[in-house]
């Protein structure tokens, strides 16, 4: 209902500003809860929108992956196969496949439509913690508690390269938009950038006081890197120059590897979960907190943004176990 009201009130301003909408960035979003998705029986670990915007995939400590319809929040299907908790899930670019990283030391490639596991990627010697497809979705990168990053061929499920990347568990891995680079973050406090083709380390980003890196991601255009560290800080780096450009603070993140995200569908925001059970939204340029989404009853471990619409999905840990979809007009 709040949504309705907001929609009305903003309708006029939207009209008035429609003329110069292109150059005027809305000051604040007005995200409001739209759906609460119930289904997981354990802490949810990760939620991701499919690139085509149709689906939401969630992984959880109940060893399951669930697919939800974004449009109506309806539960769609469950992918099961992992023998231990799942830490991360990622979509292929064509939204047809998923890859999941599990504590059973394997990754699995899933065909979403049939719900079948296509490949099991074995090779890590400890929990697999994070994973991602490359933009062409012929490669998968995974990070593990065995401190290595592995690059896998999707087609054959073979590990093509193992990067002895870090000296602590790898918390996040991500391809840039062209697929030429991989960024990895680790509890050892380093962010490394790798040449995907050769597996060579091109750059290492390191902060003065070396807090564990809990999340790292390329910006949509691949020019910047967003990192989260366990000192409740998000930073935006210009990695080519190794410089930190922006710092986003105000939330609480000292224990969990909480996902963060660029929201580019409306205004340019940074979205992240927080250990105070809220979702925080910052203005990317001004670094101000522009909105906090309240509703979860446990740590918001994952917050993700819809690729084309102003929708945020958030998921919380075991006291909550729910996924919430939030929407905004801009």
């Amino acid at each position, binding site marked *: 209902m709040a949504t309705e009201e907001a929609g009305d009130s903003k309708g006029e301003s939207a009209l008035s500003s429609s003329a110069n909408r292109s150059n005027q960035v809305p000051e604040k979003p007005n995200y409001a809860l739209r759906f609460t998705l119930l289904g997981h029986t354990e802490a949810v670990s990760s939620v991701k929108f499919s690139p085509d915007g149709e689906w939401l995939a969630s992984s959880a400590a109940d060893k399951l992956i669930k697919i939800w319809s974004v449009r109506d929040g309806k539960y769609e299907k469950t992918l099961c196969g992992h023998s231990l908790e799942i830490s991360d899930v990622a979509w292929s670019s064509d939204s047809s496949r998923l890859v999941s990283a599990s504590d059973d030391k394997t990754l699995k490639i899933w065909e979403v439509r049939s719900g079948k596991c296509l490949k099991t990627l074995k090779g890590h010697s400890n929990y697999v913690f994070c994973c991602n497809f*490359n*933009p*062409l979705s*012929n*490669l998968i990168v995974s990070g593990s508690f065995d401190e290595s990053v592995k*690059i896998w*061929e999707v*087609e*054959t*499920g*073979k590990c*093509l*390269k193992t990067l002895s990347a870090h000296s602590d568990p790898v918390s996040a891995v991500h391809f840039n*938009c*062209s*697929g*030429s680079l991989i960024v990895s973050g680790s509890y050892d406090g380093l962010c490394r950038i790798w040449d*995907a*083709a*050769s*597996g060579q380390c091109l750059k290492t980003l390191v902060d003065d006081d070396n807090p564990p890196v809990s999340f790292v991601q390329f*910006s*949509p*255009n*691949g*020019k*910047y890197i967003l990192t989260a560290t366990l000192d409740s800080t998000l930073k*935006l780096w*210009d990695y080519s*120059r190794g*410089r930190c*450009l*922006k710092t986003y603070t105000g939330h609480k993140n000292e224990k969990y590897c909480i996902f963060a995200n*660029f929201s*580019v569908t409306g205004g*340019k925001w940074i979205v992240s979960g927080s250990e105070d059970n809220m979702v925080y939204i910052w203005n*990317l*340029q001004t670094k101000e907190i522009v909105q906090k989404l309240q509703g979860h009853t446990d740590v918001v471990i994952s917050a993700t943004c819809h690729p084309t619409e102003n929708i945020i999905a958030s998921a919380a840990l075991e006291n909550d176990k729910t996924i919430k979809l939030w929407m905004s007009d801009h």
Partner: protein
Amino acid sequence: MAHRGGERDFQTSARRMGTSLLFQLSVHERELDLVFLDHSYAKPWSAHPDASSARPTRMLFVTPRRQHESTIESDVPIDVETVTSTPVPLYDNQKARSVMNECERHVIFARTDADAPPPPEDWEDHVNRTGWTMAQNKLFNKILKALQSDRLARLANEGACNEPVLRRVAVDKCARRVRQALASVSWDTKLIQWLHTTLVETLSLPMLAAYLDALQTLKGKIPTLIDRMLVSSHTKTGAAGAEALSLLLKRPWDPAVGVLSHNKPSKLPGSPLILIASSGPSSSVFPTSRRHRFWQSQLSCLGKVIPVSTHLLNNGSGVGVLQCLEHMIGAVRSKVLEIHSHFPHKPIVLIGWNTGALVACHVSVMEYVTAVVCLGFPLLTVDGPRGDVDDPLLDMKTPVLFVIGQNSLQCHPEAMEDFREKIRAENSLVVVGGADDNLRISKAKKKSEGLTQSMVDRCIQDEIVDFLTGVLTRAEGHMGSEPRDQDAEKKKKPRDAARRDLAFEVPERGSRPASPAAKLPASPSGSEDLSSVSSSPTSSPKTKVTTVTSAQKSSQIGSSQLLKRHVQRTEAVLTHKQAQAQFAAFLKQNMLVRKAVPPGSSSCLFVPISSEQTEEVEKEDLRVQLKRHHPSSPLPGSKASKRPKIKVSLISHGDAAGGACAPSQGGAPEVSGGKPVTMTLGQASGAKELTGLLTTAKSSASSEGGLSASPASSAVSSSTAPSAVHTLQSRLVAASPGNSLPGATSASSLLQGLSFSLQDISSKSSGLPASPSPGPAPQATSMKLPTPMQSLGAITTGTSTIVRTIPVATTLSSLGATPGGKPTAIHQLLTNGGLAKLASSLPGLAQISNQASGLKVPTTITLTLRGQPSRITTLSPVGSGAALSEEPAPQALPSSSQRLPPAP
């Protein structure tokens, strides 16, 4: 950005603008071009205020330095969304992709059993490794790893805008790794045939395609070895499959194939004759580097190409660096004269690579040619950049185009600008971004800018055409009055020259056929002949050289004489100049003294390092070298064989140095281990008398068959291989002279005997009088063998002092004497400051150039490698160290001359 409108528009606009297509495409200062279009009166920013003859530099693929904003204001909006548009590939992407996937499309041809189901994705687990030997397992794993990396690169690069180039780079890398793996088993025929069969049978199709790609690439580089590897599969497969496979492997694909073949360069106006000056003596048996051959064929699109190759007198035996150099210049020169007489109205264009470029320039000073093109100009020398007041190059009148690499070791764009300011000839400069001395761009450059070497080469060619067209059309316009102009120019020249160095120029221009003796006194400093005499106190070398000279005189229009005098003239000045660097305080005094001192002591003044203790050894060495250079003879093979050698000895210095100095052998590094051996092989086959004796060496060498494919006819440096290996070792040994002295002496005396024999052999063939020092010629022939053997033995055993010291002597003499070293030396001599500067490095050279060169080579090799003045200091000791003398680096050259007087 305005040109982004598709390739076709691009091409037409490029044509319309009258410049080369690729030049337009290249990262060129486009903004400036646009300025010129609108404001044709504007001076180019790079115009030289002082030098009207120097045209503004053209930059090819030089990435403009972007101005980074020094501070990033926090309120500058950060755009996290917009993806920077990727540059349009400069080649026909579609075509490139199609050739890129050739191997994938035809992968089935490689399968011996085409009907069998393709191996499953998890083929790796199905490979039955039972019964494999350790070596087989090792080799297989290595290849597998290489292919896996290649697979990763393929997948990661898939869909990238410049995927073909990235793929090309990745395939090259994979091919290199495969070659390394195969070289690690010494290309053992059985093993590699087994490997090929196994891979073909077991690999999954994508992997097999990658493997074929690697084979295709290697086939272009080492055809014989790859053929040997494929033999077995051919017998098994049907003939059709084999044929298809061999067709597929015929030549490596090139992403730029389409765009280049669609834009053929046009012929030059005036149908000029293009003379290519070789950068070293050549032989028909040892082909020039692939790159040079490629360029030769490229240039033949522009006009008639006449490569001027220099074959050595006497099969190269007994020919020193200087003589060789003279010979090279003489050859080019006589060719120019010949063409002039046959086709008096045909324009002649001289083109040369590196040293060849210098040769071309020097010839252009002596003879009339229409234009000179210098590809990779060795501007920097030990004494600093060329173009000092006494540099004969400054007298050039011929329009000259310099094409240099941005990352060249022997050249620097800025130094080049300085040099150009001083040249009076009309000159242009093209800087190729990210390219080395041989104008090859780096892998990183290829990757980042989506370039291929072939595209860069085409751009360079277009630049050459641009330049030559301008020069030739002008020349054509003046055709009628040409001869007169020429005469006028000739007349003017001596006058100009006279202002600067009367003695040399006048006699050369005016009275070339006059007897050299008559001209000698004309030299300005007067001391030059004296110093040359003085530096060669022994009468033996002198007489010998004289005979050589006279022999040459008959055949070479006396050009060698001229050269020699040229050299002599400058010698004094340059020796002095070197001294200046070290003894600035004594400069003036020295000059004064010099005039007064008796000839015998003159050089000592400048090089006051006469190390008494090493004198004895030096004497021995000298004698050895004197002899040794005879075996050293055949420059022909030298180039091919020498470069790898350098690579071997300095392999740890990294890619840059290695790449720069080993242009002749594509993927040299991995086989470097085999190369020295091969050189021994070359020597063996060349010096036929010794072949039988050297069978051991030969058999070991035969494993690296790619090199044996180019049968070294030359008696290449009997000891090239050991010497290369020992360069470092000998340096170590040299550090403890006390130890090495006796050993060296004994070794040298041994060598002395050996070299006598060879000298004898060579003198027979050459008709040269044997050197006066009496040697036990007959039995020495048999003694010759032990030298390489011993040094080889020293490699392995190298425990006792004596054994270890042998290499010292060997290295010394062999490095000096090796023909393998000669081109480098020549090159370096040129590098050192042109012909004029030769003398400074080799004071006694006129008379005893052989000896001198012998001593000099080690130094120069190292220098060539490093190329950068800053490093020379650290490096030169290698040379001097090898020579058992402990002078500081800069004095290495003078010191070699210093060593001459005490010679027997």
